């Protein structure tokens, strides 16, 4: 039961990262373009799906609370400010979809809100992951740091890294959904972004090993972990080939595999800890009565339905390189 809910949690977080990743990425890239037509094209490409993507964040949040209340309480209170900023970013970019379209004089403001909100949300998510890798001060299951303990150079680096990563996903999405100039522009972006991201990931990886000796121990204990960065490298090569041959779908899949590899590296390095080196999965799990209550309804029935719905939703909008004015 504990393992089931841990898998559900890991899966919903991964799904969130991949799905909201590309639409946050499109939001970040939005800031790089001045062309109004292209900007609208970008916004329209994610407009049908962004809110569905964000529901996975809520799903992750409530599953975490229901199944692992101790982690929910510790992490969310430790990351008070980053979470608040992330939420602020998500709200701003979410309402920008509607408000920008209806604004005339304030269009600049809502464009800024869309891009700024996306950057803020992505950056804060990266920062939190970084702070988690570095190690949170937790004493007897309680967070023992201060307001700004999470703000370290390493965490900031991770924040920038995630912005780049999401932008890469976003660019791959644009390649797939847009045509003409926007597509060509996105191909150019992918090249630059993937090189920058690759370098940054390498630096982050080395730093993580150097900063946290227990991370180093883990990798020495579990050499099979090296499989995942390897998968990442292979995916990067596929990505490069895909871009060179101007493939429409390959870059997106390759970028997603890179993310999955990074996510798996992260999860398996720290297993069985949920908050690295202080709270394990078993310590954090809610009592059996809670997990079973969740399992027999939402776990067994609703979750599969939600997945089917997500897949169907994407199939409806699957047309590649569609002219976005068509819907």
């Amino acid at each position, binding site marked *: 039961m504990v393992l089931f809910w841990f898998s559900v949690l890991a899966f919903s977080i991964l799904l969130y990262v991949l799905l909201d990743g590309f639409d946050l990425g499109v939001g970040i890239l939005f800031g790089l373009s001045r062309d109004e037509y292209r900007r609208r094209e970008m916004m329209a490409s994610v407009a049908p799906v962004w809110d569905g993507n964000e529901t996975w964040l809520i799903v992750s949040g409530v599953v975490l609370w229901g199944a692992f209340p101790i982690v929910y309480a510790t992490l969310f209170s430790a990351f008070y400010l980053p979470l608040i900023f992330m939420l602020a970013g998500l709200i701003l970019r979410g309402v920008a979809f509607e408000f920008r379209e209806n604004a005339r004089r304030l269009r600049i403001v809502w464009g800024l809100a869309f891009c700024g909100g996306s950057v803020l949300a992505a950056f804060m998510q990266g920062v939190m992951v970084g702070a988690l890798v570095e190690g949170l001060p937790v004493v007897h299951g309680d967070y023992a740091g201060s307001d700004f303990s999470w703000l370290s150079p390493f965490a900031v680096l991770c924040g920038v890294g995630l912005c780049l990563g999401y932008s890469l996903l976003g660019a791959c999405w644009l390649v797939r959904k847009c045509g003409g100039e926007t597509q060509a522009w996105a191909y150019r972006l992918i090249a630059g972004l993937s090189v920058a991201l690759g370098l940054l990931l390498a630096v982050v990886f080395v730093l993580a090993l150097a900063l946290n000796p227990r991370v180093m121990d883990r990798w020495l204990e579990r050499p099979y972990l090296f499989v995942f960065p390897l998968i990442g490298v292979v995916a990067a090569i596929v990505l490069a080939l895909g871009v060179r041959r101007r493939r429409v779908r390959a870059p997106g899949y390759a970028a997603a595999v890179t993310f999955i590899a990074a996510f798996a590296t992260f999860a398996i390095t720290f297993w069985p800890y949920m908050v690295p080196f202080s709270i394990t999965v078993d310590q954090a799990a*809610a009592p059996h009565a809670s997990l079973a209550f969740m399992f027999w309804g939402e776990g067994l029935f609703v979750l599969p339905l939600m997945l089917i719905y997500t897949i169907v939703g994407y199939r409806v909008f699957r047309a590649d390189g569609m002219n976005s004015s068509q819907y």
Partner: protein
Amino acid sequence: MDALALLLSRLQFAFTISFHIIFPSFTIGVAAWLTVLEALHVATGRPLYRQVFDFWLKIFGVAFGLGVVTGIVMAFQFGTNWSALSRLTGPIQGPLLSYETFTAFYLEASFFGILLFGRSRVSPWFYLLSTGIVALGTMLSSFWIMANNSWMQWPVGYVVQDGVFVPSDWHKILFSPVLWVRFPHMLFASFITGAFCVAATGAWYVLRSEFGPEGRLMLRMGLYLAAVLVPLQLFFGHLTGDYVHDYQPTKFAAIEGRWHDEQPASEVLIAIPDAAHEANRFAISVPVLGSVIGSLSLHSKEVGLTDFPRDQRPPVAIPFFSFRIMVGCGLILLFIAWFGTYLARKGRLEQNRVLLWLTFLSFPLPFIATLMGWFTAEVGRQPWTIFGVLRTAQAVTPTLTARSAFISLTVFCTIYGLIFVFGTLFIYRLLRAGPADRLVLPAPWPRAYRALPVLDPSLVVRE
């Protein structure tokens, strides 16, 4: 624990949840109203129902979107500001709220898509079914929220192990009598909110002599529904009062403004409660009525606040006044609904401009009543978060600093203020533009809509 951080957290929770509840209470009502319209449309085939349906679907979409973005905050706030609570009661509250997310999101998201895109692709019966399922989703959502809140009001079905609240009997939690009184009370509040928003919009069009058939339909249906719903609501309000009387005597005494035991008890109609002197100033009260309301008896003894130690009493002024404002709003709405229905039956409704104006201006009242009801329930529960077992001061995040809480409160106030202004403006434009079919011009740009593809920008009249 920082006392200022606690105060700021309470303010923040009150602010964000009050802001949030505005949208769901509206969308639950409108979803049910859309189902009624679509059923009438299928049954009679009249295009008028269809036109009014399409119009309200747009407004539903906007309010639904705002409800979602403000709802995300709620899912996080328990952990950020109330980590002690989430840790101790997580095994019970977490699963309840996760069911809310799973059931409501799934039903609403999937079938809302059919409402928006599927009219031409599915059979009319299936379309009606989808409308009903969306409405069911909004109701289920409020069921889980009420289940969670009712457990906080009257905790049952749990055992405490190592200080943590562990569920021992989900059946008791889900079939708590408190829940099954409060859930209908909240549902009817939402239905009435929907009915009055519809009636007010109709009255507005009739006053402007625009959109005649649609306006008259909205006005009549809104008033008729309200004429049935408001008395039902008063009845469930009474039952809710009974549970408070039996289970939460401190809250009941605060609502009644009763400081000392009385037998038979009088009913304070209006007064200014004075906590320092444990008495009311400028009180107007009716003898014996307090016993009648409290226990349906002419000589029952009703308890006063001084029976309880000071540190177990809620603040009196907020529940006392918010309860009276709620009841006042309810009575005004009852008058408008019944008088309007009477005039409509006599065929004089559209000539009576006073009632039309009253109906038009009444739309904020259900919102105010809902908010005031929640203020009564939540402030009256103080000083407890879980009534009788966990104090609010023990529920707050122990490491939270006033500085962090201040930053977050400022952030939320700013952003919600912004959303509120623009969201209201947006809905106002839609309402003013009215339900008529306008020529949809091809947009010169790719349209960045999905959140609301129904909202064709060319339908929105601009200044």
